[in-house]
């Protein structure tokens, strides 16, 4: 048994952030029913797209054409049965479909209603359109992640989409615990922008407290000055192409680790400079250290550098690409973290899962089903949630509102 098998979630989310949040809850056993529609071109054409397949496993699909009154009525009835309704449409869309919080909570006072909009339900920017890089830019993360003088780098993937989804899952679970205490559900206004600004928290406290404006620091530490601390080029590239470069991260977090690292380097003359014995001295000489270390790492593979450093008690790790994670990483192999989903997807056949990175000892979450196609579970969902017969469902599909 999985920990959330008693939880029913009506899922109106799309793209990444919302689906990632409901994916985690589905992995933990919640019955997540994803509302989709074949009349929307994006749903129809993307139901077998890699992006959709990545974030929607373990869910069931119910097709509703929300332009139709019959579909809205069904959505209303489903919402009455749900513990949780989640959406990441712009504020107001679900209200227009008559499944907004005010309406649903009248008949289902225990409902937990999480709205994961880009900017939140209120405020002058509440109708702004956002993707993760929008939030990274406006929230300071793009400015802070990079090299001095460049504001156009930022994080190389949609970090905040994942985090907004995970914070949505936290909100659901916290509200379920709150409902246990109070007997009431509630509405949660989750602004993906506010989730994102939260990640610049340290820089913001430093600004408000000290008036210091943080700048990008390449791979140095922004505050604690440990050195050496960076990514260094290594030997072993399969070609001269950027994609094949090999790098290793090394971080000496204490004087003791520096002394150990000096031994790994072979105790060269330059490293014996007494000024380097302290964090302060190494921090002041960080450029020189980076240059010397790079001269050393260029002669070795990233794996050799990592193994030698770690054997000596010095933190170091290969800068792993997707290929490394999927083919070479011994930890992920051992845990089976990356795996093909056994059950074939109705359209694409093979699909894959990075498993839930949470290992419950007594409620193991090791069931993985592929992402559903539009309306794949119409009959079973409507039967289980609303007691509808197969005949009723067939009629709805023929009439077009269950598609």
């Amino acid at each position, binding site marked *: 048994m999985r920990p959330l098998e008693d939880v029913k979630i009506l899922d109106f989310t799309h793209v990444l952030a919302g689906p990632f949040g409901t994916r985690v809850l589905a992995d933990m056993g919640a019955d997540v029913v994803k509302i989709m529609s074949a009349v929307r071109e994006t749903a129809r054409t993307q139901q077998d797209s890699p992006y959709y397949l990545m974030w929607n496993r373990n869910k069931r699909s119910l097709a509703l054409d929300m332009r139709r009154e019959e579909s809205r009525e069904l959505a209303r009835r489903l919402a009455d049965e749900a513990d949780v309704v989640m959406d990441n449409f712009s504020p107001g869309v679900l209200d227009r479909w008559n499944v907004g919080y005010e309406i649903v909570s009248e008949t289902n006072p225990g409902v937990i209603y999480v709205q994961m909009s880009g900017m939140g339900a209120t405020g002058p920017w509440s109708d702004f359109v956002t993707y993760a890089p929008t939030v990274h830019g406006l929230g300071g993360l793009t400015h802070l992640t990079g090299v001095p003088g460049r504001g156009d780098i930022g994080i190389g*993937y949609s970090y905040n989409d994942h985090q907004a989804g995970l914070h949505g899952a936290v909100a659901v679970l916290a509200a379920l615990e709150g409902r246990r205490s109070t007997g009431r559900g509630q509405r949660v206004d989750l602004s993906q922008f506010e989730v994102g600004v939260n990640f*610049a928290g340290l820089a913001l406290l430093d600004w*408000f407290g000290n008036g210091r404006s943080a700048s990008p620091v390449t791979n140095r530490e922004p*505050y604690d000055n440990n050195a050496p601390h960076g990514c260094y080029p290594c030997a072993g590239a399969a070609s001269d192409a950027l994609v094949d470069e090999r790098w290793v991260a090394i971080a000496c977090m204490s004087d003791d680790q520096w002394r150990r690292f000096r031994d790994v380097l072979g105790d060269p003359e330059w490293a014996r400079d007494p000024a380097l014995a302290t964090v302060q001295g190494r921090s002041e000489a960080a450029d020189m250290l980076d240059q010397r270390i790079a001269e050393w790492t260029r002669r070795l593979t990233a794996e050799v550098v990592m193994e030698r450093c770690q054997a000596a008690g010095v933190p170091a790790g290969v800068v792993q690409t997707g290929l490394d994670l999927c083919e070479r990483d011994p930890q992920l192999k*051992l845990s089976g973290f990356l795996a093909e989903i056994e059950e074939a997807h109705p359209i694409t056949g093979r699909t894959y899962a990075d498993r839930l990175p949470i290992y419950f000892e007594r409620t193991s979450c090791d069931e993985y089903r592929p992402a559903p196609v539009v309306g794949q579970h119409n009959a079973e969902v409507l039967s289980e949630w609303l007691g509808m017969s197969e005949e009723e469902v067939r009629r709805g599909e023929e009439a077009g509102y269950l598609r």
Partner: protein
Amino acid sequence: MSDTRGPLQDARVVDLTDERGIYGAKLLADLGADVVRPEPSEGDALRRRGPHLEDTPDGPTSLWHAFFASSRRFLSVDLDSEAGNAQLDALIDRAHVVLCCTGAFGAEQERLDAALSRRPELVVVEVSSFGKEGPWRDYLAPHIVAGALGGAVAPTGDADTPPLNAFGELHFMMSGVYVAIAALGALHFARFRKIGQRVHVPVHECIASGLEQVLMWYWYHDRLPMANGPVLERRGGLHWTNAFQTMRGRDGCVFVTPAPNRDAQLAWLIEEDAAGDLWDPKYQDPANREAFTLAVMQRLREWVATRDVEPLFKEGQARGLAYGQVVPVEGVADNPHLAAREWWTDYLPTVRGPGAPYAFSDTPWKIGPYGDVGADTEAVLSEIGWTESQ
């Protein structure tokens, strides 16, 4: 009807985390759980992490600690003494959840095993860097190393920079939020089934789970028209779709995309006489879809380079486009939308910081007062029934 306490008001948590899990404890504490963080009498080592609030009469205060250890109660315990160990055990015995990281203060395996055998309904969430077994099990992995091995560093950066680590503690905030989910998921089960359990969260997998295109690219690159191999190189601010990019304007940088309304973007470029050959009928051919995307983005880069970024961002949004200006920290602090939502909150009497990542309608989120070393020792010991004679 509103409650004055958070949704986790009935949850008691012991926080034995370090950097890898402390964000999870923060999430629970700020949501109203009673989270007690034991620390040695000389103070939590994380109280030494920067940045610090410099101008204070009692010496620097760690803003790192004030942020990540918010809303906690602090218990000073001497784990070299029998009494201190008994105090910590007694604290754990009245908790619903223990959060711990391998090797952190008070997180000895024997202690947790004993607690679980005394109280089967207890939830213990254990965070490790790489898992409980395997060749990297004991590898040291501070933030940059964890990010590198977890796959988060390789896609960040540009052709003329090294791979880049994300600012601050972003990788450990990823593992931290999974810690909160693990704790609340197991607590939910324990509430209804009276069965607790041990839950393990490996940081390495948490980081690898949040990389958007990276795993997708490896698994499905043969189905992605823009992919030419299993790995996408680091490419600055250009998104894997080729249709989103952080671009340089005349006075700064701005994230620009024709999504989600390509027609609106094209109309705007036409108005600005910057559309070039985008009307060429060849782009109507679905086979040229990718070429069209590249052509649009090239036009946008040329056009954005001639524009000031703030008005461009605002007009983009007014036209339904997901533009976003790249702003420094002080710009975030001055954001009018956050001000209108009264979002900021106080972490210290003179220091504001981020407010709630989610607003609950009935049970408020709030930051509790920040305490010195062992500030709540007397109250906590009294609650666990510890008397002076003991």
